[in-house]
């Protein structure tokens, strides 16, 4: 947090404003998808809005949502269906903005695998990072492809999406991103193929959204709006200056963990078209997409029938 | 100084009492020996007097007072040496002074003098594992003396010593006893020793009260008295008493 007040932030001349603290937790370790945040921070956009942003990393996939719901943090990067599931379990959170508007999550198989479409999952070990949601993904895909989900051996692989596949402990893995895990595996000499979820009946969803608790939304409406204004400005900058935007991310990480520039570059190329929609401002959510996702979750008994799509998200003013 | 009245004691694990209705008294400044067959309960009496165990029946008075907590009132030298292996000879000897909170320097001076008197010079800084059996016993004896208590309960203090060293230690004990007016209750299996050093000898027989034999020898006692016929007579009498023969 303290670091964000030094350096470029001062140049913008916003130092006199009293700053409000805002905490956001990422969905994963910092990677290309988070460039807009680091850019906005380094360019002083948050400072301009009177925001002192603290970026935290999660310990576990579900931490951001839970911590946000418990008001330990203000904002959480999370997955669209996860918000609906949370509401269904009585966890009071809402999505406030879509960051990546389309799926990144794919099923990865080794390049020379005999698996070519979901019906080939039958009799194979499918690894997933302990998200019940992934079982529904696989089920939907297999049923669409005319196979019986019971034939797949679903295996919980814990934290290590990548090495589970690379060590041939599983025949396929779901939960890796086509902009990240796929590129990494290819680069490290373990070529893989991706099977898209949306090709086999899984509805188009926003891979990453930002969520906050009902209470935070009610109490800090103005602050959140200012946050998103600054974040959007950051995203605009990244869109127009890809190299520089990425540079802010890499620079921020340098001390603790050297990111690989080429991987992040490729990643950002894939990401940017999925983040901004022509004619819509950054973060705009589609009621239609929410309805489809919630319907699909209901059909697969992942959420209770009384979950309303419109409760799952809210637009910022 | 020490009065034991109708003492009865039975170990919790055991089915018969070790001590059954035992009574005796020791006057201030007296030197009394306690003899009896192995397993007759001598050490048990010491456990009771020192307060390590409570009698099932009977009373124990120290200095005329029957106290609930007798611990720390008398000095007990146990039959096993029980030296603390992690302390040097000097530190073992200083233990009672430490516990009493006596000034360290003065206690150390006294301890070092006594180490020399006990023939242990050069061993002050040795750990007990380096000592011979008799040396360990002497350290244990010194430690008991260092409590400074007026009543000394000594359980076979010189049992592991050769004649000469034993005589020196006896003479020294007698001098401490006389000069400082201590009261001593002394367990030994050596009847000669008992007769030589004591004013009275108590003979303990299991399942029986103890018999009191005053020793009519003059003071100071010298080691040459061992060869006198009086001593030989006491010796034979006591030997027979232990074996229970004098009653037949």
């Amino acid at each position: 947090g303290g670091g964000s007040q030094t350096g470029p932030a001062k140049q913008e001349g916003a130092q006199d404003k009293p700053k409000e603290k805002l905490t956001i937790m990422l969905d994963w370790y910092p990677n290309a998808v988070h460039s807009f945040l680091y850019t906005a921070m380094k360019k002083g956009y948050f400072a301009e809005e009177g925001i002192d942003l603290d970026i935290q990393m999660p310990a576990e996939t579900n931490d951001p949502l839970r911590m946000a719901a418990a008001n330990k943090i203000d904002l959480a990067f999370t997955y669209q269906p996860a918000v609906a599931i949370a509401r269904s379990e009585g966890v009071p959170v809402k999505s406030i903005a879509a960051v990546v508007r389309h799926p990144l999550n794919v099923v990865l198989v080794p390049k020379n695998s005999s698996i070519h479409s979901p019906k080939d999952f039958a009799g194979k070990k499918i690894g997933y990072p302990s998200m019940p949601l992934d079982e529904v993904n696989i089920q939907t895909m297999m049923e669409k492809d005319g196979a019986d989900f019971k034939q797949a051996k679903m295996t919980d692989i814990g934290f290590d999406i990548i090495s589970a596949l690379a060590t041939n402990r599983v025949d396929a893995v779901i939960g890796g991103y086509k902009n990240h895990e796929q590129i990494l595996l290819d680069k490290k000499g373990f070529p893989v193929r991706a099977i898209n979820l949306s090709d086999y009946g899984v509805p188009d969803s926003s891979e990453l959204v930002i969520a906050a608790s009902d209470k935070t939304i009610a109490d800090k409406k103005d602050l959140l709006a200012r946050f998103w204004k600054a974040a959007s400005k950051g995203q605009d900058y990244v869109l127009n200056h890809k190299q520089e935007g990425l540079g802010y991310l890499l620079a921020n990480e340098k001390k603790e963990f050297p990111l690989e520039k080429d991987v992040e570059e490729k990643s950002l190329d894939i990401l940017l078209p999925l983040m901004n929609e022509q004619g819509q401002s950054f973060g705009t959510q589609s009621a239609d997409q929410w309805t489809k996702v919630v319907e699909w979750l209901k059909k697969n008994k992942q959420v209770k029938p009384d979950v309303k799509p419109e409760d799952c998200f809210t637009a910022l003013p | 100084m020490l009065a034991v009245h109708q003492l009865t004691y039975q170990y919790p694990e055991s089915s018969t009492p070790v001590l059954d209705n035992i009574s005796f008294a020791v006057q201030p400044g007296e030197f009394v020996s306690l003899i009896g067959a192995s397993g007759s309960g001598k050490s048990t009496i010491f456990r009771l007097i020192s307060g390590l165990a409570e009698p099932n029946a009977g009373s124990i008075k120290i200095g005329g007072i029957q106290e609930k907590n007798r611990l720390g009132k008398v000095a007990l030298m146990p039959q096993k040496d029980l030296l603390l292996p992690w302390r040097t000879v000097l530190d073992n000897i200083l233990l009672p002074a430490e516990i009493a909170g006596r000034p360290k320097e003065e206690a150390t001076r006294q301890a070092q003098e006594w180490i020399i008197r006990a023939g242990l010079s050069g061993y002050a800084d040795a750990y007990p594992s380096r000592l011979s059996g008799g040396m360990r016993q002497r350290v244990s004896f010194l430690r008991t003396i260092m409590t400074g208590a007026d009543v000394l309960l000594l359980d076979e203090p010189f049992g592991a010593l050769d004649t000469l060293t034993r005589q020196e230690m006896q003479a020294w004990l007698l001098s401490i006893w006389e000069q400082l007016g201590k009261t001593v209750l002394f367990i030994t299996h050596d009847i000669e020793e008992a007769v030589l050093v004591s004013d009275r000898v108590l003979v303990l027989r299991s399942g029986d009260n103890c018999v009191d034999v005053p020793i009519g020898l003059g003071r100071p006692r010298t080691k040459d008295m061992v060869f006198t016929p009086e001593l030989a007579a006491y010796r034979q009498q006591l030997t027979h008493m232990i074996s229970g023969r004098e009653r037949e």
Partner: protein
Amino acid sequence: MRRKAYTYWPAVVFFVVLLVAWEMGVKIGGVPSFILPAPSEIIGGLIRYSSELFGVHLLATVEEMLVGLLLSILLAVSLSVLMFFSPLFEKMFYPVLIVSQTVPLIAIAPVFALWFGYSLSSKVAVVVLISFFPLVVSLYDGLKSGDSEVVDLLRTFGANRVQIFWKAQVPMALPSFFSGLKVAAVFSVTGATIGEWLGAEQGLGYFGRRMSSALRADGVFASVLVLSLLGVLMFTVVYMWEKRMLKHK
């Protein structure tokens, strides 16, 4: 001082007080129940999920745990004995032993999986890795710190090393061994749970993790409850065994 029969009521009273405080704390203090559910909700979860918990996952975890603990004991005993008899082996092996404890499981999880696959053995391996260290250290220290005078006595009887070992050194090392075994027994539960994080299809740890990702805290804590009871049970069994073996005290 410590002779009285072991009575359980103070622990029970304490636990009840703790539970009531917890229930109140959660209900009044407003701790969100998706993070820390109240005891009553946990009991609810226990009932709701009882068929899965007891029918499937408990058995799986118990199997991993027992197999692992048994292997640990075997391994720890053999290693301590070897180290005890061969100073060379000790010098070679003790450092490896310590290193084995500091290697973070998450880092070698792939290696583990490479060797053991996702079968029972990978979880057993984790149990062994976690529980044999306290055992080895305490057993070996116990063996080393035995009274050398007693050993000497047996030597004068013409006892060979094996006899000395069994008749003197092992009995002298028992108290220390049991200290280690108590720790190891409890850690075997932890080991099984960690093993299940690294990849599993059943087991209480697996169940808890899935419940956690489904944001069902009642299920998470129901499995935690079962795991804790398992740990207490393991400890108690060892404690009873210790009492029996060291009854001469």
